[in-house]
């Protein structure tokens, strides 16, 4: 049986060397996999590598039985979509931000305003926000719009990097419900990087602890970063 995503013996890192090695993963529709680990040790790098935004150090990534680098990158990223933990808005209105992915050549559908409104309701977002400038939103609103923007292109897999880090308790629940719905009803798969164990237990169908996969260097960097007290997202 071909899986949605197969990852074998994956090592990820940056120019200075690998941070995580020997990562294995199988994703099928409906799965929500949590990746747990201390913050700043390579979870972001792992997710970005799976999205093809960073080159893997070693290993194999297969999407529906095809080596991922054989698929045109923009098409692949529409199917396996990474959502940054710091929500990034383009310097335009919220609506234009949501429409943006549908202006790319890789788009296979048109922007669906109805779907956008429905999802906004589910995420406790006021419809009036659509006409506001995206730069004027609060951090929590931005994070939800950023999640929504990815959901609207209907990816097969969403790679969510700390998707609720800027949200308060109420909206965390709304976002989690949304993610679960995406997996159950829309048959999407999710990979969720988080350092929040409780959240992982709440919504994930399986959990991978990356601590044992960290390289010595990653361990040291992590200690150093946490000692310095900065959130230490490696870039």
């Amino acid at each position: 049986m071909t899986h949605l995503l197969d990852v074998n013996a994956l090592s990820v890192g940056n120019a200075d060397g690998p941070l995580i090695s020997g990562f294995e993963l199988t994703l099928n529709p409906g799965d929500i996999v949590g990746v747990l680990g201390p913050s700043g040790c390579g979870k972001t790098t792992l997710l970005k590598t799976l999205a093809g935004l960073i080159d893997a150090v070693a290993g194999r990534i297969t999407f529906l039985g095809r080596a991922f680098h054989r698929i045109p990158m923009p098409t692949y990223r529409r199917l396996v979509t990474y959502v940054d933990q710091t929500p990034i808005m383009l310097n335009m209105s919220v609506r234009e931000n949501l429409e943006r992915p549908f202006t790319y050549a890789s788009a296979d559908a048109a922007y669906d305003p109805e779907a956008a409104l429905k999802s906004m309701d589910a995420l406790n977002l006021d419809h009036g926000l659509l006409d506001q400038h995206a730069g004027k939103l609060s951090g929590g609103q931005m994070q939800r719009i950023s999640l929504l923007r990815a959901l609207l292109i209907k990816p097969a897999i969403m790679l969510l990097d700390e998707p609720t880090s800027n949200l308060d308790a109420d909206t965390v629940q709304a976002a989690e419900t949304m993610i679960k719905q995406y997996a159950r009803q829309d048959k999407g798969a999710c990979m969720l990087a988080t350092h929040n164990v409780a959240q992982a237990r709440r919504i994930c169908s399986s959990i991978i602890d990356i601590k044992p996969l960290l390289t010595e260097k990653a361990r040291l960097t992590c200690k150093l970063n946490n000692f310095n007290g900065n959130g230490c997202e490696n870039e």
Partner: protein
Amino acid sequence: MSDPLSNHAINLGFFDLCIASGLVLVAALISYKMRLGLERQLRIAALRTVVQLLLIGFVLKKIFMMENIWAILVLSVIMVVMAGRAAVARPKRTVAGMNWLAMGALSLVGFVTTFSVTAIIIGVDPWYKAQYAIPLLGMILGNSLNGLSLCIDSMLESLSAGWREVEMELSLGASRWEAAQRPFAEAVRRGMMPTINSMMVVGIVSLPGMMTGQILEGANPVSAVKYQIVVMFMIAASTAMGSLLIAFLMYKRLFNARHQLNHQLIQSTKR
């Protein structure tokens, strides 16, 4: 009296240049009286003006007389190298190999524009005749290097400050070209702005140096103007081509075939 416009230029003698240096003395005097502390710099600057210009005067005279394509080529290469270095020196950021990119862009633009002006518009034979090709190339390089500088500055600034936006667009399925489009367009626009501005006010606010020189040399102002129009268009074309080319080369350098942005390649220039 004969036609006042047909007079040839009055040749300047050594003594005339000495009087001209009196004008710099006025500046030095002001600096001294007002304690601006610029006397030393003024003295060096004035000296450099005299030495550099006399030197280039002699070199040009030699090369004009030699009519040798290799001599012209060597001089052109030196000019391109100097212009390329100057273009790269000013922007706040750089990438490894930027010198080469700038020189590449400038040599192509310099060649294409000089060739089309001397060979096609003016109709000089041979097209590389030093008397025409060298001053024109100089003007092209001098102006497009400013455009290049601004273009480099803008593009590297937006890609290093805004790499997250670019990467976000990539992650949502933008091709590298789609993701680079906004910084790219802005950079080319910035590069061309000064040229467009100067085309707007030429003749009203400023009389271009070349035209002024020709008029002082006794040329008919209308004929000087015609030359100036050619020069302005030539500069506009070369700045546009130069900015476009350098932006494209930077794009190729920073985005790979796997549609990734290597923003780590951008370094700030030490100063």
